[in-house]
């Protein structure tokens, strides 16, 4: 069974308050120079057919009005991934 990794990000131009909060916090910890910080969601799942994942994103995993998503096929339901 293939394992899919879905990256979900706020769409370009859409306010990303979480990203802003992190960007402001990093210099306080002494990490300078971080920029363009965006916070999104990561969803990983085993699926029967990787082609179905885009549909899952459209209908459930992402909110296409305000988020964009990217589906990456991982080698397999591999070791090293946390399992339930």
């Amino acid at each position, binding site marked *: 069974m293939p394992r899919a990794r879905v990256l979900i990000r706020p769409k370009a131009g859409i306010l990303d*308050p*979480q990203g802003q*909060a*992190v960007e402001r*916090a990093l210099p*306080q*910890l002494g990490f300078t120079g971080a920029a363009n910080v965006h*916070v999104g969601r990561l969803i990983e799942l085993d699926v029967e057919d990787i082609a179905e994942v885009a549909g899952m994103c459209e209908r459930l995993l992402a909110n296409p009005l305000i988020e964009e998503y990217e589906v990456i096929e991982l080698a397999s339901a591999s070791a090293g991934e946390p399992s339930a």
Partner: protein
Amino acid sequence: MKFGILRFPGTCDERDAAGAVGRLDGVEAEILPHHDRDLRGVDAVIVPGGFSYGDYLRTGAIARFAPVMESVTEFAAAGGIVLGICNGFQILCEAGLLPGALLPNPSLRFLFRQVRLSVVDPECAFTNACPLTLSVPVKHTTGRYYSPDPVDVVFKYAPGENPNGSQDDIAGVRNAAGNVLGLMPHPEHAVDPLCGGSADGLTIFASIAAHLRASASTPATPAG
């Protein structure tokens, strides 16, 4: 006697906590802003509830780096009394002043509910004036306590009242030294029968005041 109430950007319950403390005879409250390292000579520190830094990234994650937290960490290391409520509990866990972490409620929803708490250790700095059970509200989205290691539990949700799937019904824990306590329920919202039908929460603040008075007369008494 003076209690310092921390305020971060996004803190919401600081006035409530100050009002609660102010009900005690001989106790005043002072708001301590996040950007100021000076604790202004307070005798105890309360880290109140709310949504510091919007709860963005992870509850409590950003607030722990505010300048005032450096002083609170030193204050705690020197045995000072620190009470974290809700978001304050989350901040103290993130800051490493308390063990464990708070995870999202299984419902993934914010939940407001009046709950009954059992006092596990009725003799400590935070409970010496408490009855054995208290009626206090909870209100949070991220209140499921988790710790891989054994912890010093001070408050539990009464049987059947665990609102958030907390491990072992844990509602409040303290550090090994006994001077830092965090709890998810809001004692500052149970101080006046007019606003909520219970004044049980006030006994937690009264316990701290009593403990401070006792240790002032016998300075060698360790907290806890």
